[in-house]
């Protein structure tokens, strides 16, 4: 075992040796080593969040035909650090009517809920926090902490706009959790494991996006809704309720919400890669050839994972800056009358085809074509429905009201 093959265990062994050299017994030495590892993972996640502030501002500027930050440092790279300094030294205002304890807890829980996800993110085959056997369920469970922080912030602010924003956000988050859970169940069925590392390893020869493209679509839509990003950004609809649930937050507390949101989006981009695009691996068996053995180096895998996560994050940004906001009744209708039934049908289909076709050579084409067929049927149903709606709306109104005046 060298540093280049297995960096985490190499450093951990070295640290354990150092601590035991100081006369600490094996148990506490393990705990201290784990603590150092945890702090490193969290700082890594926060460093990504700081970088994302720059990425987000630069990309939105390009989408809107602007330059974005370009004054501080080369390409404005030091802008986020200036932002952090500004947020820290800005006065922190707590409204007089607020519930102070809950008000101060909400931003901490908001960021903590995202940081907690990083305990299971498989950055590379040998760089990860914990490999728990219910990883996918853990993702959903920790995500609900985020919902809790939103309702805490909205309720404690003692502000009507904040409360409206929080209610809308919670309605979105809980509604879209059902397609989300189903979308997470599909890789579970195909891989036969709920551990995110196991799901990644199951894709070493074939990405799951080829087996279930509709599952990916479900995951992207529900992930964007969970994040509360446009077109589902009713929670902070600037033109109606100013900033939604974090309207009363200033300074660093607002900064925590902001960092949490960006990191959450990036994490979902990463999970998009893990669940459907092979995560850190997925080189279609290429790494087994001796000429490409370097692909399974942990550092290469880390870079591959971060690139895939960035692409996923970019897709989420692309949707955010291209779509107008939708109304709350449309949002809930879209989920309950379209996405949820589609998710359940897809789940049944995947389960049945996985069972019937798994041992045969028709597995991959069968899964792919059945997804395409289902997508086609859904589009046909939608086309019929919207045609009927259009005819209904374009019917000329009868001039009854004018006659009544005379």
């Amino acid at each position, binding site marked *: 075992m060298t540093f280049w093959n297995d960096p985490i265990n190499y450093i951990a062994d070295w640290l354990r040796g150092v601590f035991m050299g100081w006369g600490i017994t094996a148990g506490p030495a393990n705990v201290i080593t*784990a*603590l150092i590892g*945890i*702090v490193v*993972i*969290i700082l890594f996640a926060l460093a990504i969040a700081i970088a994302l502030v720059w990425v987000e501002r630069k990309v939105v500027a390009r989408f809107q035909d602007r330059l974005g930050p370009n004054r501080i440092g080369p390409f404005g790279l030091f802008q986020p650090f200036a932002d952090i300094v500004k*947020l820290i*030294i800005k*006065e*922190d*205002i707590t*409204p007089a*009517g607020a519930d102070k304890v809950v008000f101060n807890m909400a931003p*901490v*829980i908001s960021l*903590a809920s995202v*940081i*907690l996800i990083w*305990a299971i993110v498989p950055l590379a085959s040998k760089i990860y*926090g*914990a*490999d*728990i*056997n219910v990883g996918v*369920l853990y993702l959903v469970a920790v995500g609900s902490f985020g919902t809790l922080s939103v309702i805490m912030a909205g309720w404690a*602010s*003692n*502000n*009507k*706009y904040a*409360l409206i924003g929080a*209610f809308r956000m919670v*309605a979105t988050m*809980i*509604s879209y*959790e*059902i397609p989300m*859970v189903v979308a997470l*169940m599909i890789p*579970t069925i195909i891989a*036969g494991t*709920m551990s995110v590392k196991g799901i990644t390893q199951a894709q070493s020869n074939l990405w799951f996006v080829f087996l279930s493209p509709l599952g990916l679509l479900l995951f992207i839509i529900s992930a964007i809704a969970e994040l509360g990003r446009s077109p589902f950004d009713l929670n902070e609809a600037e033109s109606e309720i*100013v900033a939604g649930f974090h*309207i*009363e937050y200033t*300074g660093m507390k607002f*900064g*925590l919400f902001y960092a949490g949101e960006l990191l959450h989006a990036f994490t979902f981009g990463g999970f998009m890669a893990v669940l459907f695009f092979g995560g850190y691996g997925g080189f279609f068996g290429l790494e087994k050839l001796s000429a490409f053995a370097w692909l399974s180096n942990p550092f290469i895998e880390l870079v591959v994972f971060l690139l895939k996560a960035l692409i996923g994050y970019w897709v989420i940004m692309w949707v955010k800056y291209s779509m107008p906001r939708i109304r*709350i009744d449309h949002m809930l*209708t879209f989920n*309950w*009358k379209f996405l*949820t*039934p589609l998710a*359940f049908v897809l789940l*049944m289909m995947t*389960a*049945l085809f996985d*069972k019937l076709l*798994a041992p045969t050579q028709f597995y991959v084409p069968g899964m792919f074509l059945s997804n395409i067929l289902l997508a086609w049927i859904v589009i046909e149903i939608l086309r019929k429905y919207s045609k009927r709606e259009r005819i209904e709306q374009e019917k000329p109104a009868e001039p009854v009201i004018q006659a009544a005046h005379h």
Partner: protein
Amino acid sequence: MQSEWLYIGLFLVIGIIVPIVPLVASHFLAPHKPNPIKQSTYECGIETVGESWVQFKAQYYIFALVFLIFDVETVFLFPWALALGKLPLFAVLEGIIFILILIAGLTFTWRKGLLEWA
């Protein structure tokens, strides 16, 4: 396996401590000069009318109820999805019947008009 969960527990503790650090730093570095106007509720600039902690639209509650039913039932589906490869075809069909019952429930709420934003 136990050590993995111990790790998650440690992660939880540190994950809560880390966001508190910048708040503490801000507490010592930022100015603190409160006044009644600064601390008033911010709603478009005009003074706020009435209580904020009021009863709210019941529709949100109904959606939460529908969600609760589905979420509890999807938890039952995870073990089935996990063991799918080892199950006989009959058990898979049973799971599909369970999902069909879920869809029947969804259709019922739909027909009852509970999914309308009235």
